[in-house]
């Protein structure tokens, strides 16, 4: 059981800055995120696209913003739990008990949900029958590529994941690559490589095709794909891989007794606390009249939520307002002499 002041759910910019604000007022926090890396939507959706509306930073990419935030919170030695997701949240007297998918347990005085629009999960095939093969002969991510050795693998998608795996697996598998249009969104070098493999007969490329049917009893035996012009084609295959990027799902947050408004959590605007005392929500996931889904709004919400957490973590103490420029204790916490 990890005992700390605050558990932050979500390692996007909002969660990271909230950790900074907590650290500055002397509270300890730890962060759980479902992705395998820090940065949230900034890293997952637009790592190399520029952002122009961070105050005092005329232009930066999602990756630069994330790296700068990490640098900013470095003095606080925040502990991250990546590839993990909070499943259960339970009241334990004045505190909260939290359990994650990886069975990590936390006991905290408050929780800050900075979960964006929920956790990122792979987008799946739209065909219902696909579900029964999932995890056996159909995958949305690859943990062990040796599974496919000497087999026929049919890959769907046109982004970097689809192209990279098609190239990698073509070394010792028979590959069919299927995409809904002629153009690919993946890197041009990868596209060139795919075309080369195709011309060498090491890979079959089907463009303007989409999945129509999956056949098989225990394992997939073949798939039928349909062209834009309605013609169909059946391909024998051992495995099916789909790389359609990630979608955000609210997931277990739905079960924590929070007042929800569509896919967002209702909060007050004084300290962004939810209807559950001690649970706060900030960033894209919270809603209140006038909410703007901007990173800068998330920063503001995080600063106020951190103060809200203080009264739960240190009920006996009074929080004095200080500027980081002049506060002796803030400087100490930042490791500045």
């Amino acid at each position, binding site marked *: 059981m990890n005992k700390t002041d605050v558990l932050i759910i979500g390692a996007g910019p909002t969660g990271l800055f909230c950790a900074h604000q907590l650290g500055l007022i002397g509270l300890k926090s730890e962060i759980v995120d479902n992705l395998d890396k820090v940065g949230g939507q900034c890293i997952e959706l637009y790592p190399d696209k520029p952002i122009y509306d961070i105050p005092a930073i005329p232009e930066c990419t999602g990756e630069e913003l994330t790296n700068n935030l990490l640098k900013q919170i470095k003095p606080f030695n925040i502990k991250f739990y990546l590839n993990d997701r909070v499943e259960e949240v339970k009241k334990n007297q004045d505190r909260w008990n939290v359990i994650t998918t990886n069975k990590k347990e936390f006991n905290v005085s408050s929780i800050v949900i900075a979960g964006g*629009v929920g956790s990122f999960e792979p987008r799946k095939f739209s065909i219902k029958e696909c579900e029964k093969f999932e995890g056996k002969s159909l995958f949305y991510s690859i943990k062990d590529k040796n599974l496919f050795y000497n087999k026929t693998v049919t890959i769907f998608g*046109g982004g970097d994941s689809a192209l990279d795996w098609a190239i990698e697996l073509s070394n010792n598998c028979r590959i069919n690559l299927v995409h809904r249009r002629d153009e690919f*969104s993946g890197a041009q070098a990868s596209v060139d490589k795919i075309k080369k493999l195709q011309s060498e007969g090491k890979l079959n490329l089907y463009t303007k095709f989409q999945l129509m049917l999956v056949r098989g009893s225990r394992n997939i035996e073949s798939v039928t794909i349909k062209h834009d012009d309605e013609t169909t084609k059946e391909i024998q295959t051992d495995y099916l891989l789909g790389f359609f990027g990630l979608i955000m799902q609210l997931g277990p947050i739905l079960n924590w007794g929070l007042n929800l408004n569509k*896919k967002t959590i209702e909060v007050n605007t004084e300290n962004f606390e939810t209807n559950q005392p001690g649970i706060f929500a900030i960033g894209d996931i919270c809603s209140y009249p006038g909410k703007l889904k901007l990173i800068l709004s998330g920063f503001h919400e995080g600063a106020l939520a951190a103060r809200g957490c203080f009264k739960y973590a240190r009920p006996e103490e009074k929080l004095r307002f200080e500027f980081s420029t002049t506060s002796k204790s803030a400087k100490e916490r930042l490791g500045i002499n």
Partner: protein
Amino acid sequence: MFLHTCLICFNPYRWLMAKIKYITHDNKIYTIDVKNGLSVMEGAVQNNVPGIDADCGGGMACATCHVYVREDWLDKLPTKEDGEEDMLDMAFEPKTNSRLSCQLIVSDVLEGLAVSIPSKQG
């Protein structure tokens, strides 16, 4: 001096919105007056039309405001920016008449536009 008093012409909002028809996958029809300048996505979200999620809030970064546009409307719409087609690769059951509704900005030209909403957004 002639004072034009016709209420229809005088209504200041007369020219500032377009009727957009949203058809859900179970064939419910929502006809909404959407103000010029808003996106077709915003028109749906602000009026509680079900089936358009718009997770990223209109940033062309999530493909959860995916709609099908009636064929006769396709060439009247603003052309796809770089990136929209890439995002549509990720959408649920994309077709040749797929668009991201956050990229369709309402103007007089779109008066009467009909869009169908897929059964799911992801």
